[in-house]
């Protein structure tokens, strides 16, 4: 326990800013999760591993001398095809089944990805150095790496592009129609199978963007996927499906919570705090709903 945060107000400012910038990234991953949860009604435990895979794409570009920021363009393209391939191989068999089946199947995929990445890229903690420098605010009391600001900016850009795409394009309309009522969409001539594949691909692409940004701003490691899944799950259940401002806000809230947990409890309890927060949020929602004799659906 360390209460430095409350004695020096500037540390709180630092934690808040860090948390918000981090939270925007979380919100991007959560947006992908909400998309495929809403459309396909599956919960993807491998979400975090897709993020890490995207991160490794950017890292490899960095290793081969290309600036890792280009990963933001390359990673989603590769990840889109990874996502579609994953859909064709496994996910299409769990779409109409019980949610637990999808949880367990994607858990298997998660373990598979984790270990394959461990073989391919090694078990070291790596980061792609963007060389963007840092910004100092308030007489150097608050230090912000420019890469964090860059990643938040890119996340917002991608989110806006995606929202416009979903509103305007033909595929976007088809996806929204399938989310509302897949059977009706099928009757009206939407090829739902294609829509599902595209949705999962878009989700994977979003994960790829987020992963590339994470490899620039933070660190990546093959086994770090699950916390990202849990974070995005948490954001989605707090915000609700299809509530984009809510996703952004609760993402930032989670980011700030994590930064404060990091300062107060210590870094070793950071992931534990995230998982405990998930349990607490679920239990809180359960008690709130049980007053009306309802339950989380």
């Amino acid at each position, binding site marked *: 326990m360390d209460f430095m945060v409350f004695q020096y107000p500037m540390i709180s400012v630092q934690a808040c800013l860090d948390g918000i910038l981090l939270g925007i990234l979380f919100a991007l991953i959560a947006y992908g999760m909400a998309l495929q949860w809403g459309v396909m009604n599956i919960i993807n435990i491998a979400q975090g591993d897709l993020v890490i895979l995207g991160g490794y794409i950017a890292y490899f570009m960095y290793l081969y001398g290309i600036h890792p920021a280009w990963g933001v363009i390359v990673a989603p393209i590769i990840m889109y095809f990874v996502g579609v391939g994953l859909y064709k191989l496994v996910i299409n068999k769990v779409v109409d089944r019980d949610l637990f089946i999808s*949880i367990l199947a994607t858990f298997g995929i998660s373990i598979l*990805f984790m270990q394959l990445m461990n073989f391919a890229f090694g078990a070291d903690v790596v980061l792609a150095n963007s060389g963007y420098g840092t910004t100092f605010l308030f007489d150097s009391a608050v230090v912000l790496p420019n890469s964090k600001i860059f990643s938040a900016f890119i996340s917002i850009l991608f989110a806006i592009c995606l929202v416009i795409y979903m509103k305007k394009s033909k595929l976007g309309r088809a996806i929204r129609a399938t989310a509302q009522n897949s059977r009706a969409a099928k009757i009206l001539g939407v090829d739902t199978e294609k829509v599902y594949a595209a949705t999962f691909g878009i989700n994977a692409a979003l994960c790829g963007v987020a992963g590339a940004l994470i490899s620039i701003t933070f660190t990546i490691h093959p086994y770090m996927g699950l916390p990202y899944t849990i974070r995005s799950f948490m954001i989605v259940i707090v915000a609700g499906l299809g509530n984009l401002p809510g996703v952004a806000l609760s993402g930032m809230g989670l980011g700030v919570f994590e930064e404060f947990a990091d300062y107060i409890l210590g870094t070793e309890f950071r992931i534990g705090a995230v998982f405990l927060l998930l349990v607490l949020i*679920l239990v809180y929602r359960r008690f709130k709903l049980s007053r009306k004799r309802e339950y*989380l659906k």
Partner: protein
Amino acid sequence: MNKNLILYTAILIFGLAAPFVFPAFKVQLSILCVLIVLALTWNIQGGEMGYNTFGNILFYGLGMYLCASVQVGMFFPLAEWTESGGEKTFVHTPAQFFQGMAVGLVVAAVVPTIVAGLIGYSILGLRGHYFAICTLGLGVAAGEISGGIEIIGAGQGFTTPPFPDVGGLESRGEFFYFLSFMAVVLTFITVKSIYSTRFKLILNAIRDNEDKAEAMGIQTMKYKIIGWMISAFFCGLAGGIMGGLVGYIDSTDVAFDGREMGVFMVLMAILGGKGTLWGPVIGATVFHIFKEGFWTFFLGWQYVALGVLIVVIVIYFPEGIMGWLREKYPERFGEVVDEADRKAQVELK
């Protein structure tokens, strides 16, 4: 009935004779027993009650840490023991070891039961996938948090007391084998006797339609909590035994090992057949034989194989071995089959 009696006697005799017949596989057999206990207890939730949990690993890990801590803490200062990290600064006498183990196992079984009772009311109000994710979170959180606590070894792990020097080299394996075999027998008898009462029907009613069960006047929450407490009791016991057997406890790799043991118990129950008495036992045995037989051939690719195995079992074989047998030989399961109907079905295929 008579046939069953012969079967049980045969299994009991086999179980008692196994360590002497296959002396090289004593540790493997003990691990198999622990796996069977875990699969049987998971089946109470996942199979009979329809609450698919990833969180039973919480009780398993808790039992493991509790048993070891009690065993050490009864005689020596716990903090110094973990600090010395396995070097033999303190040595248990045989009497101390067995006393500590006995008390430790009782604590390891009872405390998780109480914990399950305390958190049960909050957690079991969740349903379906929310329950699954919530318990997954609980298990991982427990692992992360216990990895930060100094007194039980934090990141460097906890070495459980070494087996005292009695009865030669073979006695350690025999001791742990009979301990885990006793746990299996105890679990099986408990589960079997539960499954022949109204309690099981209530659990099945909860699985099939909880709202209707409630409307029929069943206090579902009470029975859900009792079911979870029974699971927690045996999970804690299995954890305590496994801690002594492995000899070393690490927070995320041994105790709260959601990636291995936490998935194994789900997988074994599903492989054998959810919601059957013998399913988890068969599933655990098949899984363990597969795992030990082929694990060494994969040379580091075990987790890849595990991932593929999970996906394949879940997608293509969700009813498990017992479910498959039931479909193939329905008469053996006491179902009346209309011959003409069956023939028609075969022709359709």
